[in-house]
């Protein structure tokens, strides 16, 4: 898909890759004893070094059972804490930098040393990535897709943890943002992006769609063209895993073109491909 991307989509793709690079760099630096705050600070520094000035939202980092949002009741609990990383602990880094006016919002799951349980969760997320794309191409209502994803998670034996996000969203729209010299943020969210979302919400309200892909009636509409940052988040007892990346939805009649993942060269996708070729090789042998 990458070859045929428009200049605009290439811009989004570049920021998304930049964001994943930051996440991978910081993930490689994590040591036992690193705190969530230190990790988010490192993410901000990495992004700033790559020229990021504004954020859709500031980086989040969740360690241990916080990856599954265990015991989260208040929105403030999402913010980084002094929880220290320990060997074998899962972690999730979530950041949404804006660069050159393009927004990305990504989630990176990993663990400090091997964690077979989280590996399993990540492997099972592959099905969700394919499933969501298939259903979006069929133009099913977003609310229905949400419920289908819920059911898939239930069958897999997991809990839906994206329900803990604001409005319980599995995805939200991202867009271009004007670059300003001063880019303040409120509660971790960039004001420019919040404005964009609010605008979308207003238009959507008039036209019958919502920039937030939620389990509620407001999402009972077919996928709206635009860029959606999709973030299915699995939780299994004290372990969580998610990916987050941009799904492009267009109004093209060709199903292939009507929806596609912006980039197939992302760390989790590459990991799945490697695992698949490995099992194939094993099967062949």
């Amino acid at each position: 898909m990458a070859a045929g991307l428009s200049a605009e989509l290439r811009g989004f793709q570049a920021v998304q890759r930049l964001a994943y690079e930051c996440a991978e760099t910081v993930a490689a630096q994590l040591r036992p004893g690193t705190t969530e705050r230190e990790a988010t600070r490192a993410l901000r520094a990495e992004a700033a070094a790559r020229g990021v000035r504004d954020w859709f939202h500031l980086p989040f980092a969740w360690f241990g059972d916080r990856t599954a949002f265990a015991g989260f009741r208040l929105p403030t609990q999402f913010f980084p804490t002094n929880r220290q990383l320990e060997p074998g602990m899962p972690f999730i880094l979530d950041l949404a930098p804006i660069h050159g006016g393009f927004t990305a919002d990504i989630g990176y799951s990993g663990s400090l040393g091997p964690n077979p349980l989280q590996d399993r969760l990540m492997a099972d997320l592959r099905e969700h990535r394919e499933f969501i794309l298939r259903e979006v191409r069929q133009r099913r209502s977003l609310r229905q897709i949400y419920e289908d994803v819920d059911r898939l998670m239930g069958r897999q034996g997991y809990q839906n943890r994206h329900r803990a996000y604001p409005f319980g969203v599995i995805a939200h729209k991202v867009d271009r943002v004007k670059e300003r010299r001063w880019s303040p943020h409120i509660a971790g969210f960039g004001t420019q992006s919040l404005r964009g979302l609010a605008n979308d919400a207003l238009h959507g309200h008039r036209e019958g769609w919502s920039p937030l892909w939620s389990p509620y009636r407001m999402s009972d509409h077919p996928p709206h063209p635009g860029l959606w940052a999709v973030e299915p988040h699995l939780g299994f007892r004290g372990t969580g895993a998610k990916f987050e990346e941009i799904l492009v939805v267009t109004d093209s009649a060709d199903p292939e073109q009507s929806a596609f993942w912006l980039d197939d060269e992302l760390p989790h996708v590459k990991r799945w491909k490697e695992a698949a070729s490995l099992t194939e090789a094993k099967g062949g042998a």
Partner: protein
Amino acid sequence: MMSEVRERMVRSGEVDLCAVEYGDTAHPTIILVHGYPDSKEVWTPVAERLADRFHVVLYDVRGHGRSSVPTPLRGGFRLEKLTDDFLAVADAVSPDRPVHLVGHDWGSVQGWEFATVRRTEGRIASFTSISGPSLDHFGHWIKQRLARPTPRRTAQLLGQGARSWYVYALHTPVLPELAWRGPLGRRWPKLMARAERLEPGTYPTGSLPHDAAHGAWLYRDNVRPRLRNPRDDAYAHVPVQLITPLGDPFLSPRLYDDLERWAPELRRRTLPTKHWVPRTRPDQLADWISEFVLAHEGVDTGPPVGTAAIGPVRKSRGGRPSTSSARLRAAYAERFAGQLVLVTGAGSGIGRATSFAFAEAGARVIAVDRDAEAASRTAELSRLLGAAAAWAEPVDVSDEQAMDKLAARVATERGVVDVLVNNAGIGMSGSFLTTSADDWRRVLDVNLWGVIHGCRAFAQQMVDRDQGGHIVNTASAAAYQPSRALPAYSTSKAAVLMLSECLRAELSAHGIGVTAICPGLVNTNITATAHFTGASQSEQERLRAKSSRLYRMRNYPPEKVADAVLDGVLRNAAVVPVTPEARAAHLLARLSPKALRAMARIDPPL
């Protein structure tokens, strides 16, 4: 099971000790030390179970059984001399390799001495302690509580003080000897059989009156000096496994609260039994001993079960987990690690969550479900969560023959089930008048007959083994809350509740607990698969979706029900209502059944 037994006498100072050996001497050596008033024969059931994998050694403590008696008696039973005896036996049976030590009661009190004095370093590889604290730790425990007598600590002190009545009695001169050689010695086997629910007439030794009379000196020679001046350096230099029977009438489980301070490498296990564990729970003991021994023989047995999933638990200063949820999880792991747990309806909802909770505690899980794929998924994730092992069994609980076959297969391949969770159930809603005979049959077949088949198939095995066990039946809040919308379902669940209560009464004589769980509205797929009687196909779908949405809005997670199941087994609770509405209804059923009946008339908004 009987293997060749070799007897030998070992000289230690002025006494001769009688030791017997089981199994191949090339295997790791385990020395089992008996307590008071026992002789080495108390260990025979455990030794026989370990003999195929280990070189097992039992010996009579001086003055007991066929070992000779020190003269004079006073001063002859000091822990220093008992340490000499142990070293003499260890040198005789395993001169080159360190031995694994297991002690029960006074054997464990001695074991603590052996595991904490310097001169045994390098001779002991591991120590399993059952029902016998270190006198030094005990001394410090008392001192601490006397020094800062908070209400809780005072209560602990008084509690243990009351349990120790026999210790004071044994300090009186002559009388204990007279009693043991007279009426007490004659009656003891019967008294013990009754107290511990043992088969009468199976008391293992004839030398009891003499053993008990001599053994009184164990107390007189050691208790007062050690409690008054406990050693400050009584740190275990070996890994310790502590097995605590929670119903012990002589020792409070609180005694071991500070143990992490003394034993840096400590693994805790608990049993819902009384004092004489080697006779009442030989299977479980043999399992835990062999697992612990292998883990400290350099044999790779994988990560210790029951701790893999817990991961790094933040420990408080005392060494025990600090948060209440971590403490609960530790309690589950202490109790269920390695136990065989069978859950029906394990492919989804409460059954699946229950399987996972047991898996996290390190149990061996058998996930039974009609849906083979869902069952194997549960088993697979259970293994990842830290289950010692997990298997899937695609069986329909309403099929009697299939259940009998399953029970037979489980018994031969995996052993006797320790915890049985009869959870499989289906939902059915609709008024009585629209419920057809087929509908009735369907719901009763699964919800009631499934439980009956499960209990029939496995309870007999538990009783035959005679080493306890537990049965959990998933009833429902609908079992005591009438409703015009759920006549068939409520009837089936009320039957399950009553069955559980009757079974509890019957099986309590065998030390088997029965618990009925009454969840209430829990967010599972029972609504999505429920049958609504008298509704057309499209109406079915609508009602399912609507009720699913209702349950989702209520959003009570099955994981909390699973916790209630484990907690119910731990406490041996009779009836466990889970959700707040289930608890409220349970209370109301007692306070004002009339109010419940009035509520039953309300048609639910679907």
